[in-house]
């Protein structure tokens, strides 16, 4: 039992992202308010970004900025964080912001037409 707990505890970054992802997912499904659905969607996406970023960390790792003279003897990669997930997530964040922008623009137009964010009321008025 303690072994399992230790195993699970050592990977607590995964639990954080799973919990955040489920919070976002639940918000998207359960809330009837469209704005809250967008917030849930954003939490969902952020959880995945957090997952990627947390995997790049290393115990005692530092910023992956390598002075040029070090490269001749090779780089001690164990002491540097993995920069690739950061680079990927920079792009993913741009995608996320674009999605959020389109979602908010849609909500503005939906609100102008239906005067509410409540999904049930909007479905009644369709």
């Amino acid at each position, binding site marked *: 039992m303690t072994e399992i707990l230790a195993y699970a505890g050592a990977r607590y970054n995964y639990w954080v992202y799973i919990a955040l992802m489920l919070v976002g*997912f639940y918000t*998207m499904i359960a809330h009837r308010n*469209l704005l809250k*659905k*967008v917030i849930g*969607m954003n939490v*969902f*996406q952020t959880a*995945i970004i957090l*997952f*990627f970023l947390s*995997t790049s960390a290393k115990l005692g790792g530092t910023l992956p900025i390598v002075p040029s003279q070090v490269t001749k003897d090779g780089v001690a990669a164990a002491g540097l964080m993995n920069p690739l*997930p950061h680079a*990927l997530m920079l*792009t*993913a964040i741009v*995608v996320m912001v*674009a*999605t959020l922008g*389109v*979602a908010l*623009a*849609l*909500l503005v*137009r*939906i609100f102008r*037409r239906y005067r509410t964010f409540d999904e049930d009321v*909007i*479905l009644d008025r*369709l």
Partner: protein
Amino acid sequence: MLSDHLPPFLAVVPLLGALLAPLLGAVRPRLVHPLAVAAGAATAGLSLLALREVLARGVIRYHLGGWAPPWGIELVLDPLSAFTAVAVSGVGALALLYAGPAAAGREGREAPFFGLALLLLAGLMGMIVAGDLFNLFVFLEVASIAGYALVATGGGRALVAAFRYLILGTVGASLYLLGVGHLYLMTGSLNMADLAQRVPELASPRVLAVAVGFVVIGLGIKMGLFPLHGWLPDAYTHAPPAVAALIAPITTKAAAYALARILFSVLGGAEGLGRAPLLTVLAWAGGVAIVAGGVMAIRQTDLRRLLAYSSVSQMGYIALGIGLANPAALAGAFLHILNHAMMKGCLFFAAGAAAARLGGPALTDLRGMHRRMPWTTACVVVAALSMIGVPPAGGFFSKWYLLVGAVQGGQPVLAGVILAGGLLAVVYMFRVLEHACLVPRDEDEHAGSDPALERREAPPGMLVPLLALGVGILAVGIWNAPIVSGVLGFTAR
């Protein structure tokens, strides 16, 4: 040489058009449509050229910025991607041509509309040429975000449909990204060819199954695979005709292509995934989609909604072919990507033209269509025959290869489902043809044969792409053998 640089051009040409459209729209709004058609036609022409080059010289690999993979970004054109590129860009270019008269009367809206349409095309072409999983995600989202905005241009109900599409589409893309993240953590690579080398050496099939599960569910949402199709009927129904004609035929096809590409080029297909029942699940999901989509299509009274549920059913065929994973079934699935793009494009073109000329999207509005719009009706008949699977229309041959694949794969139930799907298509397409050709319009019975009622054919700008697809459906049917053996590389035994 130009042919070495073809892969980036396939995505860059429509992207350039998407940038130029709003700029040109500020000065000369009338020229935006010709610009969009030119960009679409150039993309389709380059795709054809790419297909010819790939068949003559083999796979074209392009390293962006000269950085070699797995560190650099790679774009790949092989026969399958070039074939899908031709299908998507060809139907896409015709949809852009069709969109001109459909978007007319919406002064000042041309520039944003065609900008977004070209952005959608650029995203889809990027998905097809992408050689690594992360760029596939980025292009998937470029296409999707353009798609959400395009659906929303319908206003009113389309706004709510676009919102639902956005929420579900984002969940799909996020799950795909999560799956890609798992694959990256296991292998340290994102390049497809590099991953294909590393995946068989993996120690933990369980993590691999989780990763692949996320990827399949994510792309399943994007390709409208039942039961993940929740966004699709509303988005296709409430989008403006020009948008439905663009989105319905091609967006789900690019996602289906990406799914097949990842399952077979990256994960090694049936051998690589042998331990996980994933392909079997996918095949059965496709079978359920064929029946469920067909049954839902029969119940519809709105032509666009009927076509949307028919799309759910037809995407089931593609998923079934991918899931069966033998050469005949895969040839059928890829041939169906082309066939379904053409027949669904043809039917949505006709639906838009009929709505403009006959007054509405309901099936009852189609009455008397064969007298007023004979050419449009002829194209609907050809597309309906293809949907049902009557030779020589193209749909027969893709379903034939799928059937052969199901029999060879030892799945008699799925073979029965393929045939049952054809019967369901008979019912729902006959409901369309019944109203279009057999039931007279109310005013016709009083007016007799008033010549003023006779002809209200679609304008040439709509009719030309419609006829092109109608002829194309028959041409693909007639020349299916060279396509299947020469392009898809399937040799009948």
